């Protein structure tokens, strides 16, 4: 798997080795708690239980993969690495195919398309909001999913960021009326299949993602070789 080295340096650290506590039992206990809570929630609502379970799965995958959207956008600039960027592109590509298949299935049989709440008006509010979010996630050391993941990992700093994320959200909700009136209501909503047709939109988006992938890979190689000069 590669975590343990390619070639071994000449010595090991002399730091005193504490006896490691085995946390695996606690891990299984946590999994047990997750399952129990799922069952309990199911008595209230099967929907809530499902969301709890999928949340747990997302948290598990994100932590095991050290998957960080923040890193995907920050590292190309800060360290020259695009490995996370490329992984995010892969996720987007696969999901595009799956989402489009589901949506087209509904559309072509005349039913209303699920997930259209993700298709939102584009306005200055979108750009400014995204820009602010981008700044915030790098400074705070994690995006939305990353913050939650790191709270679970025991980072006090991200727990603090989590609290202020909530405060900021309330503030944003308070001001939302202003942004809606001034910008969002004049925004344009663009659902790509409306413009390019279903197949056109999917193919175009996949081509763009593929191009970005290649650009990201070449960019990393270029930054590395200029390092070694």
């Amino acid at each position, binding site marked *: 798997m590669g975590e343990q080295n390619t070639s071994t340096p000449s010595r090991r650290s002399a730091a005193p080795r504490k006896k490691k506590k085995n946390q695996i039992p606690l891990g299984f206990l946590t999994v047990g708690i997750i399952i129990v809570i799922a069952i309990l929630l199911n008595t209230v609502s099967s929907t*809530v239980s499902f969301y709890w379970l999928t949340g747990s799965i997302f948290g598990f995958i994100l932590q095991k993969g050290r998957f960080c959207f923040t890193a995907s956008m920050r590292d190309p600039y800060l360290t020259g690495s695009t490995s996370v960027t490329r992984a995010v592109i892969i996720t987007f590509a696969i999901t595009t195919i799956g989402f489009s298949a589901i949506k087209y299935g509904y559309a072509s049989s005349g039913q209303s398309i699920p997930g259209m709440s993700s298709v939102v008006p584009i306005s200055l509010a979108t750009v400014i*909001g995204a820009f602010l979010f981008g700044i915030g996630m790098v400074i705070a050391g994690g995006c939305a999913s990353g913050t939650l993941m790191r709270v679970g990992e025991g980072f006090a700093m991200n727990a603090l960021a989590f609290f202020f994320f909530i405060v900021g959200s309330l503030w944003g909700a308070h001001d939302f009326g202003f942004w809606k009136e001034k910008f969002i209501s004049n925004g344009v909503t663009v659902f790509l299949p409306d413009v390019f047709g279903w197949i056109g939109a999917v193919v175009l988006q996949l081509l763009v993602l593929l191009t970005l992938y290649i650009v990201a890979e070449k960019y990393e190689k270029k930054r590395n070789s200029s390092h070694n000069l």
Partner: protein
Amino acid sequence: MEKDKVKFFDRMKSNEYYVRWLKNPFTYVTAAVLLALFQIVTLAVTKNAWGVSGAFAVWGAWLYQGIGGNVDKWYYFASDSAQATLNNGILNHPDSWRNFGIIFGALAATLLASGFKFKKIKSIKQVFAATIGGLLMGYGARLAFGCNIGALFGGIASLSLSGWIFGIGMFFGAVVGSKLLVKYFM
């Protein structure tokens, strides 16, 4: 009995499957594929893409109401569906529980790999970084109808141009954030 149980978990540490699946990190690509899979499952089952930050605004409202505030006149919370969400409480709010799930799933993953450590805040710079960063994320996500998950991941995968616009804005924000991080918060 207790000693046998402890020995069982100690032996597990060198079990081949434990090491491959629970101990070692996933590759980025593995995680990428799995995330896509469960995002697709989410759309198929819940009829909506995964979202994280929406719940934060609701939590903020509940906390604010808890200290005597009122959000009912705010445009954001004025709609019937928003009022219903606020009034039905947290047990009936699926988004809240998905977010709690993320925390617990990450905790479980960390403990199963025997890698949990509580990491205290190290400096006042971190306090400022967490505070300012959190506020910016919260505010920005409301303006843009979501965060990296709802607006970026969900938007792009849903073939909405808004997702791409969000991505471009987020990228430039990340560049600026990186400069600020190195200059003021390191």
